């Protein structure tokens, strides 16, 4: 019996390791390939990209796609090209930053105030509104794109950064997560603050927000990753190519620059990765606590 149990555990671990490696594969491939020379990359992926471009008359360099992890020759050529020689990539990177950072900050502000309202305000209207928020949360971004387009057009902000930032500021998911988090704060704590002389604003700022730190951090990370990787919204709401973020630009890189795509993708991953590593504990705590009953 004991042997069987050990075997089961071993098999499970093996399975977990397999899946972990499987999911890690594209990331590792992207990073290692970003250090390959252009010719090596062309040799590995030439056929795929040639087909994609649909240029039938081209001579194929290789017949098969060759997934190669370790470069024959390590070079920083792609990075030099991206970071120094062609400033357009950095400009796109900057575009991403100035779209996503305000969205994250504004969303945190709006969501925390709204969640506080939902926590402190009692009544039937509150329940209805909160239900409405949950329904909204379940809708995919694509569904809200058309209304967002129409409203942006009406407001005259179409094709400006505000067309992305403004809808991004109001997010039902963040409100939901924060409301759940704030409701876990014991009422007696808020009452104690009241007796201590806190105003409503002070209760929010001094008592509620510090205790929602993990939820705030989780939201910041999730929202950052979500908007850092956005593609549909800028394409529809921000057609001006000069203002579009790197996420959109990545998809337009053509055959001749495959090597650059790996380098840009690697650079592009860095902010999300750093943010995640920095707030990993908060992220786990913030999400794990939602829905749990506190004794």
């Amino acid at each position, binding site marked *: 019996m004991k042997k069987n149990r050990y075997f089961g555990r071993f098999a499970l671990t093996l399975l977990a390791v397999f899946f972990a490696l499987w999911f890690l594969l594209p990331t590792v491939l992207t990073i290692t390939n970003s250090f390959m020379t252009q010719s090596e990359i062309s040799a590995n992926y030439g056929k795929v990209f040639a087909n994609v471009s649909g240029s039938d008359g081209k001579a194929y360099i290789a017949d098969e796609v060759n997934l190669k992890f370790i470069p024959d020759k390590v070079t920083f050529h792609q990075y030099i090209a991206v970071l120094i020689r062609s400033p357009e990539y950095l400009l796109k990177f900057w575009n991403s930053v100035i779209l996503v950072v305000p969205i994250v900050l504004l969303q945190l502000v709006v969501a925390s105030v709204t969640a506080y309202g939902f926590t402190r305000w009692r009544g039937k209207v509150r329940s209805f509104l909160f239900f409405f928020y949950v329904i909204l949360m379940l809708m995919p971004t694509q569904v809200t794109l058309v209304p967002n387009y129409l409203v942006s057009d009406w407001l005259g902000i179409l094709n400006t950064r505000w067309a992305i930032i403004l809808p991004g500021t109001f997010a039902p998911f963040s409100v939901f997560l924060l409301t759940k988090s704030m409701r876990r704060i*014991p009422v*007696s*704590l808020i*009452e*104690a*603050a*009241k*007796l*201590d*002389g*806190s105003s409503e604003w*002070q209760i929010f700022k*001094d*008592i509620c927000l*510090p*205790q929602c*730190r993990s939820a705030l951090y989780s939201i910041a990370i999730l929202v950052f990753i979500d908007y850092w990787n956005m593609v549909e919204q800028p394409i529809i709401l921000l057609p001006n190519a000069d203002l579009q973020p790197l996420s959109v630009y990545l998809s337009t890189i053509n055959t001749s620059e495959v090597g650059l795509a790996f380098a840009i993708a690697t650079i592009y991953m860095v902010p999300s990765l750093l943010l995640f590593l920095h707030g990993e504990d908060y992220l786990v705590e913030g999400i794990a606590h939602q829905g749990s009953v506190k004794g």
Partner: protein
Amino acid sequence: MADLSLRNVKKIYDNTVVAVQSFNLEIADKEFIVLVGPSGCGKSTTLRMVAGLEDITEGEIYIGGRKVNTVPPKDRDIAMVFQNYALYPHMTVYDNIAYGLKLRKFPKRVIDQKVREAAEILDISELLKRKPKALSGGQRQRVAIGRAIVREPQVFLMDEPLSNLDAKLRNQMRSEILKLRQKVNTTFIYVTHDQTEAMTLGDRIVIMKEGFVQQVGTPQEVFHHPANLFVAGFIGTPQMNIFDAQLVREGDRYFVELAGLRVEMSAEKTARLLAWDVASQPVKLGLRPEHLTLTDRDDAVFAAVDVSEMMGSAVHIHVSACGQDVVIVVPLSEEEETENMPMGQPVRFTFRGSAAHVFDVETGYNLEYPQKSEPEETAPPAVTVPENVPPADQTAEEVPAPEELPAPAEEAPVPAEQPEAPAPAEPAVIGDPFAEE
């Protein structure tokens, strides 16, 4: 420091649930008042209304002569200690205590001095830099008290502050609160469901049940002169024994007859019964276990031992008598050996007339203190009866006398339809609030 006045205070939740009914109480400056009663009796609601955390449905609350019905909690100059401590988990002990002062814009130097003084009083000076989660339950409670005393409030409110502590720590903290009271010397309102806490801490005790005040009085008063059967059963450990007995009046003398035993009421009790002109009638006879004495007299009440519990300084003997369970407390002197009482051993007990409490079978009121204003009054001077008192079985002349004889019970504590039922049926409804003892 301030006096408090609660006048006809009433609380109704959602227009349906009545939590507190016509609560009247005058609390003197620097008095320590304990609200006690079983769960759901409205004691915490009353406290929260004083704090301003609950709206008052009807009535008025005055603190230091100022009506505070609509005054927000922060402007009432009160401090409150919560059952679950309610410490801010993200702040250090120092910041927890200092928070109220910071909000009131005290200079930093003054805040520091006050926090350290409070920490000194509560013996938590070395904990000031810790976060609440690094403290034990007792330490957390001290911090919570520190946060309250540092503000030097006019009124100190405590909502079951010791309930989350274990029995040993609770006893220790109880004496700490007594000491604290000497030091801070302000008005206290303390809520508890533990009658031992109520008896040891309070200058006066307010006993509540289902939203109604049952009795207000000093610990001695409520112990020796319970206003009704509920109070009699609630106060005192072990619980008072209640028997079905007969009160007999012979001229100016009163006797109680229990299972053939006839005991004359004491002169003091007789005088009170005479004052109300109480006639011979069947009664509920209340006898505290420590007032029953084992005897060899032939006319005493016969009983059979069920079990005897050695408590160290006394033996609690559980016996069956008059068709019910009865507890007799026999104190032991130092030299005395534990009496070995096997199950079924026949014993006889008696009691003194000064220890007998006689209650009305129908209403449960103590017959020495019926719900009348003055014994001489024959006219129905019902003017002082609050309109909103539900007078289940109250007549127009039944006016709650101040203090000792408060709001009427909304129901007869003893079910009138089954007078022969064993008396402990009623105290059993109360639950067992003395379990920890």
